Each structure stands twice: as structure tokens, then as C-alpha cells.
């Protein structure tokens, strides 16, 4: 589903990604674990082409991301950021954003989908509330719903629970797992928390200073050697 081949990315004078290789099967959840500054977020942004790689290639469904219309690619490859950014307007308007900007608008479908997905993520009672008035956890639910309403095939999750307290983080983690598994989505879940990586990932890729140093099932990784 996702094939990343030898990608390189430089930001300013610093080489952030130094030849990343990674394959993610359809329906698989790969957790990428690494310390701050290891290049995890940059890698996700390269996959949905928010930034351009300097070298190498990324394929989604066997097609290079460069060959996709970027706007269409980003609908197939959803990205949830570490800190949710709420747009102007209420929760319903936030969730429907991706549908409202599309060329083929269908108001009835939009209303129905917003209500359905809001129930699924647990924000149905806030649909008319100002999105910026919600708590961090509620905002992250809205951000998830906003990406999922576009029916992506791939979800890129950039530390989606790291800014939440442990209890809310755990709730959101379980919610995300439920949502992506019920849709059989292909997921790359970036985290700096090894225990979270072990809980969520079918496989784990350990990233260090712009390189993936090991990719395997959690139980096969010699954690003491690769992640200190």
C-alpha cells in the first residue's frame, strides 16, 4: 500500500531524512517511534506531499505520489497533526470542511455524514458549538472526524495523543484504533512513546537521526540496543 524508497529531505542546512525505506501493507498499522528531531513528522508530511522530498520516491497503491493530483492524494492519505487546529465556525462546519470545499457538493450527504461520524467519534452533542471552545481531547476527536469523513485509504497520525493527559490520551488511542480497524485503514502512527508503539503497531519502525534503524514486530526488536 505504501512503499517508501530511499527518501531524502533537507530543511535549510540540516538533512532531516537520510534515505528512508519502509513498506506498509494494506490494513497494517506501522508505528514509527523515535525521539524529537529524528524526522518522524517530516516523513509523514512527505507522504501526503505537504512537503516535497529531495530524493527517492514514495508510492501509494503502487503509484508515485508525484503522479497524483496533490489535492486528491491528500484526500486518500489523511493526516492528523499532533496539535489539532480548529478552523473558524462550529464543530459541524469543521468536520464537513473537506466535503464543503469539494467540487461536487451534496448537502444532504454532507449533513448525514457529519452526524454519523460525529456520533462515531463522540462529539455529536457539540455539533453547534464553537470548535475552538472544545477541550484538547474533543478537538482531537474533531480532527479525526474531519480526516475520516473524506474516506481515506491511509491515515498518517503524528503523535495524536502526545499533547493530552495520560487518561485522555488513552481514550483517544483506543478510539483511533477502533476507527482505523473498523475501516481497515493502512496506518503510520508516529509516537515517541515506546509503550504506545508496542500497543498500537503491528510492526514498529525505530527512527534515529533521519534513518530507520530497524523495522520489525515489537517482540523481535532488541529495545535495549536500538532505543535508549
Amino acid at each position: 500500500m505504501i512503499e517508501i524508497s530511499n527518501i531524502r529531505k533537507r530543511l535549510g542546512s540540516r538533512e532531516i531524512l537520510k534515505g528512508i525505506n519502509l513498506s506498509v501493507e494494506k490494513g497494517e498499522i506501522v508505528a514509527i517511534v523515535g525521539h524529537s528531531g529524528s524526522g518522524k513528522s517530516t516523513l509523514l508530511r512527505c507522504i501526503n506531499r505537504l512537503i516535497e522530498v529531495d530524493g527517492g520516491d514514495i508510492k501509494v497503491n503502487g503509484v508515485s505520489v508525484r503522479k497524483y493530483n496533490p489535492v486528491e492524494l491528500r484526500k486518500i492519505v489523511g493526516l492528523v497533526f499532533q496539535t489539532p487546529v480548529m478552523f473558524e465556525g462550529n464543530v459541524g462546519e469543521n468536520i464537513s470542511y473537506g466535503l464543503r470545499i469539494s467540487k461536487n457538493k451534496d448537502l444532504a450527504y454532507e449533513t448525514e455524514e457529519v452526524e454519523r461520524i460525529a456520533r462515531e467519534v463522540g462529539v455529536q452533542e457539540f455539533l453547534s458549538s464553537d470548535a475552538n471552545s472544545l477541550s484538547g481531547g474533543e478537538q482531537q476527536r474533531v480532527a479525526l472526524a474531519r480526516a475520516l469523513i473524506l474516506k481515506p485509504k491511509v491515515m498518517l497520525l503524528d503523535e495524536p495523543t502526545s499533547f493530552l493527559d495520560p487518561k485522555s490520551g488513552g481514550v483517544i488511542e483506543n478510539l483511533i484504533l477502533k476507527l482505523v480497524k473498523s475501516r481497515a485503514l493502512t496506518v503510520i502512527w508516529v509516537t515517541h512513546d515506546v509503550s504506545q508503539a508496542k500497543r498500537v503497531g503491528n510492526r514498529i519502525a525505530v527512527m534515529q537521526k533521519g534513518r530507520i534503524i530497524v523495522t520489525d514486530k515489537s517482540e523481535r526488536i532488541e529495545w535495549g540496543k536500538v532505543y535508549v
Partner: protein
Amino acid sequence: MFDSINLSLNVDIMVKLVLASSLAIVIVVVSYLKEIGVARDFSSAALRGFLQLMLLSALLTYVFLSEIWYGFAVPIITLMILLAGYTSARRVGAGVAVVKPIVITTPSITAGALFSLSTLVVLGVIPTEPEFIIPLSGMAFGNSMNICSLTLTRLLSEIKNNKDKIEAKLALGATSDFTVREYERIAIRWSLIPTIDNLRTLGVIFIPGAMTGMLMAGISPVTAAVYQLSIFFMIISSGIMTSVIASHFVKLRIFTQAHQLIL
């Protein structure tokens, strides 16, 4: 022509200039007594202004009388364009590395101001005479320059402050154009507020400079009012065109064709 525009440098005018300068003494005295500290600045600025205006009036007198005035008008207007583009670019600053302001300001100001000027010339509102073309060009370029600076400063600041929001929208499949549309609207509207407010209070709170000048030169109030309104429409239309073009250029510079924000 020379007589009609009354540019002759006669004794009477010089006496009036000296008498008007008595107000300059008031400025210096007040500054000294109240320890405001502007006397020196004012004196040097006044002297500089006097010399610049004398030089300009001598130049304009020569150009207005010349048979080939357009041969002078072209370099004068070119100089106006370059200075306006440079001044606006300096105002916008180099805070945004990816944007070279002068590449945006100069063509935007030129296109915006020339659009309005040429429209009025083609419609016959402005006669193709140097007395009209040169000063009105100055007004059009000057105002476009101010509006361009205001638009770019506000637009770049809005985009920088909302970078996360713009990227979140791009990540949901929005086009670059769509993600900055609201900031573009805010910047353009904001840049035009001072000029539109001036238009709104025209003739109530103040009589603008051009109309005052025409009235003092003995032009009928109705004719002066018509010209003043034409000037305002020219200023606002050149301003809005400059603003729209400048913000379009900004988008071209800060987004790639793949809708990636590179600010």
C-alpha cells in the same frame, strides 16, 4: 499653457512664500520653548522640501512647455514606478525569505496604477496633456504604493500567523488558493480602508489637496469637485487592482504548484 497654469515665478509669489514661512518661526519657537526637540529636524526638512519643490517646479515648467513633453514624461513615470516599487518593498521588508518583495511590488503597482490612468485617458476624462498626466501619475503610483505596502504587510502577517491552519486545510485537500482566500480578503479590505474613509468624508471633514489646489487656482467648484471625484475613483481602482495583483503574486511565491506552503 504657461499662463493658464500660472507657474511664473514672480515677486508677488516669492513675497507670499516668505510670509507663509512666518509659520515656520512659530514651529521653531514652540519646539524650543516646549523642549520638543523638532526644531533642527523641521528646519532641515523644510529646507530640503523647499529645494525639492523648487527643483520640481523648474523641471515641470520646462516639461510643460516642451513640444516633446512625452519624451520627459516616460522617464519621469519610470522613475516614479521604480521608486514606488522600491519604497513599498522596503516597507514590506525581508522578513519572509521566500518572497522578494520588489519582484511583487513593482509590477503590482505598475499594473494597478497604469490600468486606472489609461482607463481615464481612454474615456477622455483626463486630457493627454502633461499638466494632467504627470501629477495624476504621481498620485496613482503614490497611492498604489501605500496600498501595496499595506496589503503585503497584512497578508504576509496573516499567513505567517495562520500557518498551522493553512497546512491543516491543505492536508484535507484544500487548494492553496482556497486556504488563503480569507486572509487575502482581510488584507485587501484593510489596505483600502483609509482611502475609502477619505472618500466617505470627502467635502464634509476635509477638502482634499487636489480640489483645494484647483479652487485656489480659480477653477469653478463644480469642475474641481468632478476632477476630485475622478481622482478618488482612480486612486481606489488603482489601489484595488494593485492589491489584488500583489496578493496573487504572493500566492505564486509562497506556494508550489503542488499546493505546498513554502513560507
